[in-house]
């Protein structure tokens, strides 16, 4: 009688301990940061920046000056912020990189392209815009940064839906 009582209690205690262990294990993966950093070429920091100045600095380590040689083609009004076609072309020589930024997006940097020698400095892509915002294009040419920007009005945002 006392024996049975003892084992029952012990079982309860063990079950309790088991449950605690399981809860502990369940929480564990959330404490780990994803092991993505292995890819050293991806500019992780630049894609975390909250302002265009920070993003450009994290990406290139310098600041950009406006240039009329950078031509951006973007709509005046985007009916759908989830798909905004933006293209850029430039007459600047020795272009090595072209990046797209949206000031009002939660992550300002959208895309950054490397342009090897022999590839023309014009790129077209489609980006998301949370709301009406300045779109900034940065072109790296001959080691210097040049930019163009244009306000695109968004009637339906690409984030939140």
């Amino acid at each position, binding site marked *: 009688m006392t024996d049975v009582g003892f084992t029952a209690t012990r079982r309860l205690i063990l079950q309790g301990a088991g449950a605690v262990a399981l809860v502990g294990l369940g929480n564990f993966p959330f404490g780990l940061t994803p092991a993505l950093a292995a890819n050293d070429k991806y500019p992780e920091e630049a894609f975390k920046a909250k302002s265009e100045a920070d993003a450009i600095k994290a990406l290139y380590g310098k600041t950009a000056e406006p240039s009329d040689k950078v031509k951006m083609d973007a709509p005046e009004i985007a009916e759908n912020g989830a798909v905004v076609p933006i293209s850029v072309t430039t007459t600047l020589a020795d272009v090595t990189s072209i990046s797209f930024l949206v000031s009002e997006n939660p992550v300002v940097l959208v895309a950054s392209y*490397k342009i090897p020698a022999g590839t023309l400095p014009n790129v077209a892509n489609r980006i998301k815009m949370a709301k009406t915002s300045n779109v900034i294009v940065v072109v790296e040419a001959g080691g210097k940064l040049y930019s163009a920007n244009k306000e695109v009005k968004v009637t339906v945002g690409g984030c939140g839906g």
Partner: protein
Amino acid sequence: MASTIRVRATSSGETTEVQALIQHPMDSGFVKDAKGEIIPPHFIQQLTFEYNGKNVFSADWGGGVSKDPYVKFTFKGGKKGDDLKISWIDNKGQSDATTTKIQ
């Protein structure tokens, strides 16, 4: 499984124009689903194009690129019938690659 990458590379003789369309959700991590729960980030981070074993174009993407991303660029050279190799990898480590013939 069918490739996630659709690409058309057209040679004009001097240059080759490349247009690529990739099937990918490109979830930014800022959008909520119908239940109000955040859809975790899932987007392509890197995309590369190789011709003759040489990189002709590469992209670093964030979650701000549209779903089923599209990109267009042009490089000098590239002959009809030659191979162009395209590959991508996303933030979850998933990837895909394909090779297309320049037209």
